[in-house]
C-alpha cells in the first residue's frame, strides 16, 4: 500500500459529488459565520465559555453522572447504564421485550449508529425505522451517513428518486417536494404503529434532569407523540451543569450546524408525559452509554468529549470538502471524527490511524468549533501516539536524513544550494515508493532554497 486509506476513498469520489459536497459545506460555513457575527457583538466569547463549561463537565463526570441519575429517577425515569455497545443493545432489547414490543421508530441518534443497534434489533425480529428524512434514505439504501448534520450530503435527488421507486414509494419523481411528501405519508403510519420511540439527547441538564432534543423535521416530536415508551440513548458526556447553560449551547448549536438561530423543534423532556396529556410516553428510559468514552476521558485527548456534534468543523475542513464523509469509514467523519474515531476504535486504532494524518493542521476546525476544541493539537497528540505504538504508516518518507541535515548548519546550507538540482530531476521516476505516492497527487514547487537567507542578508534596515 502506498497511499493512505482516506486518500484511496477520496480518489474514487466522483467529481460531481466532490463539487456538491464542496459547494454546500462552503455555503453553510459562510452563512454560519454571518449569522453569528450579525447577532452577537463577540461570538467568540460564547464559544470560549461554552468550551470551558463542557471541559468542566467532562472533568467532573464522577460527580455529575450520579447527580443526573438521581434527578432523572426523581422524575420517574428508569436509568440504565451500558459500558459497551453490546450492553447498550441488550438494554434496548430488554426494554422492548418487557413490553412485548416489535416496532420502533428512531429519531436521529448517533449513538445508535455507533452501537449498530438497527442490525442487532433486526436479528431479534424488531423493526427499527429511521424517521429523519436523510437517515431514512440512508437506511433504505443500506448506506451510511456521510455528514453529522446532513446525512445524505453525498446523494443526488436522482439517486433518491430511484431508491423511492424501488421501495414502492411511488413512480420515479426527483422533485425534492414530492420526495418529502411521500416520506411524510409513509412515515406517519409507521410512527402511529410503533410501540417505542428511540432518541438520542443533545444535552442533559444536571440541574433539572431535562433532556434536550433538537430536530428540524419534527421527527423526534412525532416519535414522542405517537408511542407509549421513550428510550433515550445518551453518551455519558452530554451533561450540562445548569439550565441556563442550555441557552448558551442552543444559541451556538443551531447557528454552528445550519446557520439557523434555533432549530425548529427544541424539546425539553424531564419524564413521561403529563397525566392530562392523551399522547406520548407513559414510560421513559435513559441509557447512559460509555462505549469507549471513559478511555477517551483517560487519554490526553479528552477535550474531544466536549463535542456537541454540530458539524461546523466538517463544513470548514479542506480535507472533508475534498474527501467527503465515507472516506473516514466511521460514524463520525471530518475533523471531529479524525480525533474521535481512532480513539473509539480501541484495539483497532491502527486501522483508523490514517485519519489523524489527514490534516494540514490549518486550525480552521478549532476556530469554528462552538466548544473551542483544539482539534489540531489533539491530532498531533494522536500522531505521536501512533508513532509510539508503531502503527503502520505510509506516504511519510523517513525523516532521519532530514533530521541530520537540520542539526548541522554547514550541511544545511550546502543542501539549500545543492537542492537546486531537484528542479532538473525527473522526480516521479525516483525509486522511492513514498515519493512516488506523494507526487501522484501533488506537484512539488520549484526549489528556491537559500533565497530567503540572501534576501535577509542584503536587506537594509
Amino acid at each position, binding site marked *: 500500500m502506498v497511499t493512505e486509506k482516506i486518500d484511496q476513498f477520496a480518489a474514487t469520489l466522483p467529481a460531481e459529488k466532490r463539487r456538491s459536497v464542496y459547494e454546500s459545506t462552503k455555503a453553510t460555513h459562510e452563512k454560519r459565520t454571518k449569522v453569528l457575527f450579525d447577532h452577537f457583538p463577540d461570538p467568540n466569547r460564547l464559544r470560549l465559555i461554552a468550551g470551558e463549561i463542557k471541559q468542566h463537565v467532562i472533568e467532573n463526570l*464522577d460527580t455529575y453522572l450520579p447527580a443526573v441519575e438521581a434527578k432523572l429517577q426523581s422524575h420517574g425515569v428508569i436509568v440504565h447504564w451500558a459500558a459497551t455497545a453490546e450492553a447498550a443493545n441488550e*438494554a434496548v432489547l430488554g426494554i422492548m421485550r418487557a413490553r412485548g414490543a416489535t416496532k420502533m421508530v428512531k429519531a436521529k441518534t448517533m449513538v445508535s449508529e455507533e452501537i449498530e443497534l438497527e442490525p442487532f434489533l433486526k436479528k431479534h425480529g424488531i423493526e427499527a425505522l429511521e424517521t429523519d428524512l436523510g437517515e431514512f434514505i440512508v437506511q433504505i439504501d443500506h448506506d451510511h451517513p456521510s455528514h453529522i448534520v446532513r446525512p445524505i450530503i453525498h446523494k443526488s435527488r436522482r439517486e433518491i428518486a430511484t431508491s423511492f421507486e424501488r421501495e414502492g414509494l411511488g413512480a420515479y419523481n426527483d422533485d425534492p417536494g414530492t420526495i418529502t411528501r411521500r416520506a411524510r405519508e409513509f412515515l406517519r403510519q409507521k410512527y402511529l404503529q410503533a410501540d417505542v420511540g428511540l432518541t438520542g439527547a443533545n444535552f442533559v441538564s444536571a440541574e433539572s434532569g431535562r433532556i434536550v432534543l433538537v430536530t428540524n423535521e419534527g421527527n423526534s416530536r412525532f416519535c414522542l*407523540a405517537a408511542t407509549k415508551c421513550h428510550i433515550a440513548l445518551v453518551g455519558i458526556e452530554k451533561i450540562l451543569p445548569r439550565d441556563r447553560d442550555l441557552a448558551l449551547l442552543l444559541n451556538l448549536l443551531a447557528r454552528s450546524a445550519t446557520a439557523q438561530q434555533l432549530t425548529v423543534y427544541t424539546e*425539553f423532556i424531564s419524564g413521561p408525559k403529563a397525566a392530562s396529556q392523551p399522547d406520548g410516553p407513559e414510560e421513559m428510559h435513559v441509557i447512559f452509554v460509555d462505549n469507549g468514552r471513559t478511555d477517551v*476521558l483517560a487519554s490526553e485527548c479528552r477535550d474531544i468529549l466536549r463535542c456537541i456534534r454540530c458539524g461546523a468543523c466538517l463544513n470548514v475542513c479542506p480535507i472533508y470538502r475534498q474527501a467527503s464523509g465515507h472516506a473516514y469509514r466511521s460514524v463520525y467523519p471530518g475533523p471531529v471524527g479524525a480525533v474521535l474515531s481512532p480513539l473509539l476504535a480501541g484495539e483497532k486504532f491502527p486501522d483508523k490511524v490514517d485519519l489523524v494524518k489527514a490534516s494540514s493542521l490549518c486550525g480552521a476546525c478549532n476556530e469554528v468549533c462552538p466548544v473551542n476544541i483544539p482539534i489540531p493539537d489533539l491530532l498531533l497528540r494522536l500522531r505521536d501516539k501512533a508513532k509510539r505504538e508503531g502503527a503502520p504508516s505510509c506516504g511519510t518518507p523517513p525523516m532521519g536524513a532530514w533530521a541530520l541535515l537540520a542539526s548541522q548548519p554547514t550541511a544545511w546550507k550546502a543542501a539549500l544550494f545543492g537542492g537546486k538540482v531537484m528542479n532538473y530531476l525527473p522526480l516521479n521516476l525516483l525509486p522511492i515508493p513514498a515519493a512516488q505516492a506523494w507526487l501522484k497527487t501533488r506537484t512539488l514547487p520549484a526549489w528556491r532554497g537559500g533565497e530567503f537567507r540572501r534576501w535577509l542578508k542584503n536587506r537594509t534596515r
Partner: protein
Amino acid sequence: MTADREQILSRVRAALAPLPVRAALPDYDAELTVARKLLGDRDLLTVFAERIKLVNGLLLTDVAALVGHLRAGGWMRGYCDPLLWPQLATHFGPEFTVETVFDRTRVDHFAFSITRAVGAIAETGTIILNDRTTASRLGALTPWVHVTVLDRAAIYPDLGHAIAALGDDPNVIWVTGPSKTADVEGILIEGVHGPGQQIALVV
C-alpha cells in the same frame, strides 16, 4: 446493568484521578446569550412578529383573519382544543367541520388544528408549547396547519428568559416555524413530519 454502572463510574474516577486540578465552572452574565443586535430596545411583539416571519411562520391578530386564511387555503376540517372552541366556534361558519377530540386513527382527516401556547420567544420567533396546556401532542403536530393561541403578555425576550420559565412541566417544546428539511440537495422543503404552516394567533 448495576455492574455496568459501577464499571463506568469507576473508570470515570480512574480517568480523572491523575488530573492535578479540575476545570472550574465559568460564570457569565446573562447578557452573553442574548442576541442583542436583533432585539434592540424594541417592543417584544414587534420583534416576535419580525422573527416569526423570517422563519416562515405566520402571525395573526384576530380570529376573523384566521378563519379567512383557513378558508382561502381550503383547510376546512380541523381539530380544536376543547377549552378554546367555545370562544372560537362563533367565528367559524357551517362550512367548517371542527372536532374537539383528536382521533389518531384519522390523522390525515384533520387539515388544521388549534391549540394553546404557553408563551413565545421574541428574538427567535418561537412558540412555546407544554404538555399541560397542549390538548393533544398529535393534534398539535400532524395537521398541515397548526394554529397556537398565544397571550401577548407571555412573550419572553430571549432564550435565557424562556429557559428560566420552563417550570415543572414534563415536556416543553419550542416551535420555530414550520417543520422543515434541507436533506435533499440542500433545498428547503417545509412540512416534513409536522405542520407545513405554523401560525401564532396573538390575543
